[in-house]
């Protein structure tokens, strides 16, 4: 008996020339030049600091700038997995990060902080890195939850990045699976503490101790 197989009505694939994101990423691995503005600012600050009595100016200015920086850390809303629910609870009215000067913002180009909340897969890592690179300097990153810290329960999976610190630099690790809003709030306060000790341009404090 013959089989009445209908001819497929699916149009042929048009994306055969599709460039994979990771291929694209390889073309943009390095910046052509260093950060010229930061370097200029640093030399200026060094000059003022070495001037007699100039350290008073620089420390006061640093304190002022750090106060300004830590009082308006805008996190980009970047939810990856179930930790994002806790992150949303932290952003919402009960825990209310806005009293710390944090406005959850849906654009990386207007943000200062990236809360990596959830499992980072190898396929997601290039996108995460690209969004992180869109944040203007100075920028910070909080690794939220076991998955982002080390891979967590999916550590032995074939597709999971074993810790988001293999992709982007991380300032504060928040343990928990998922961390409750209190934990994340504590981590954000730790981050503010780090920012208030932000020394000169690009020189940041050491990250918190990493616990899975």
């Amino acid at each position, binding site marked *: *008996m013959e*089989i*009445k*197989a*209908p*001819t*497929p*009505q*699916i149009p*042929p*694939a048009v994306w055969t020339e*599709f460039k*994979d*994101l*990771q*291929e694209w990423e390889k073309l943009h691995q390095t910046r052509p030049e260093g950060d010229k503005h930061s370097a200029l600012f640093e030399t200026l600050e060094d000059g003022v600091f070495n001037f007699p009595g100039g350290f008073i100016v620089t420390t006061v200015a640093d304190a002022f700038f750090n106060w300004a920086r830590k009082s308006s850390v805008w996190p980009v809303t970047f939810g990856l997995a179930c930790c994002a629910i806790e992150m949303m609870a932290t952003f919402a009215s009960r825990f209310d990060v806005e009293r710390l000067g944090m406005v959850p913002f849906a654009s990386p180009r207007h943000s200062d902080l990236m809360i990596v909340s959830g499992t980072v897969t*190898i*396929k997601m*890592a290039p996108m995460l890195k690209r969004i992180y690179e869109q944040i203007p300097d100075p920028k910070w990153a909080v690794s939220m939850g076991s998955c982002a810290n080390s891979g967590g329960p999916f550590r*032995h*999976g*074939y*597709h999971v*990045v*074993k810790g988001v610190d*293999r*992709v982007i630099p991380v300032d504060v690790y928040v343990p928990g699976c998922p961390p409750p809003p209190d934990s994340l709030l504590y981590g954000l306060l730790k981050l503010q503490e780090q920012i208030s000790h932000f020394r000169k341009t690009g020189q940041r404090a050491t990250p918190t101790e990493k616990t899975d």
Partner: protein
Amino acid sequence: MLTPGQARGLVQERFGVTASGEGSLLVVEAPADRWLELGGFARETLGCVYFAFMTAVDWKEQGLEVVARVENLDANFAVFMKTKLGPGETRCASLQPVWRGADWMERECYDMFGIRFEGHPDLRRILLPQDWEGHPLLKSYAVDTPHPPYR
């Protein structure tokens, strides 16, 4: 309307195998070269229009086994189709001409087990990145296979 008992009789008559499984579930095992025929038979004769899922089993040295479940939603019975590809064999007939829903399932099966479905219009990886090496659900795939640049 076709009852599961009548469907069992039709399978026995056509393929010469007794469908195992009990009640409204028919488990039919066919040789690999009659896989497409089994698919067409299940759709046209048994009326299984709904393609539920497809996956594969790696029996190590005995080779791969492709399994698929299709359902007849009117008569309320399901056919569980199985075929063994044989040791070292990765080619299999595609069911995409019979059920369009098999398209992405076969792509996933190719992605995870490396089974080449012959007759599939667009057999690419669907879950993993296109430049991924290896097929992770095979028993021979080492979990700690490095995948640069992130691990």
